[in-house]
């Protein structure tokens, strides 16, 4: 059953990728990235369950932290705040 959820989330990631490539503005792309990272975090957590390894949750956590700060960096760069 988990495979189905994994698949669906993967589909969602791919759909967001459409916005990433399509744009049209930089802001659109970064929003797409932001959403993709959120989805990916969920995907990773789900993978942890799939492999039955709690240690992968740490990976998801670090990923969430780095992705969040990364998005903030993009945002601040875009508004000229750096």
């Amino acid at each position, binding site marked *: 059953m988990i495979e189905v959820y994994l698949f669906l989330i993967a589909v969602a990631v791919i759909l967001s990728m459409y916005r990433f490539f399509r744009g049209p503005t930089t802001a659109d792309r970064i929003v797409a990235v932001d959403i993709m990272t959120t989805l990916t975090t969920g995907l990773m957590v789900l993978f942890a369950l799939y492999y039955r*390894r*709690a240690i992968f949750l740490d990976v998801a956590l670090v990923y969430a932290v780095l992705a969040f700060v990364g998005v903030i960096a993009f945002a601040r760069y875009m508004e000229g705040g750096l």
Partner: protein
Amino acid sequence: MNPYYFASIALILIGLYAILAKRNVLKMLVGLSIMETGVNLLLISVGYVSGRSAPILSEGITPDRAVDPIPQALVLTAIVIGVATTAMALSVVINLYEKYKTLNVEEIRRLRG
């Protein structure tokens, strides 16, 4: 061709293409990073053993159910080295831009001959 190998070779080649074809120095450096990523993926792929899990021997994972830990250790190192290279490259480019006021690789050629 295995998709992981394919992806890593593709990344390496895309990176190489960027270095060969892009005029902007920053894009060339991005190419370099992409290349490094490809290499890292390749290393990891080489160490993968089908049907096995991360080489962390907890939660019921025994040695015969774990993948090769060496490439993962290597990649850790390689990533850090890549980061370091990128950091150096960027600060070099900052200085370069300050002096030359350009990032066009064709204009960064005062040293020649």
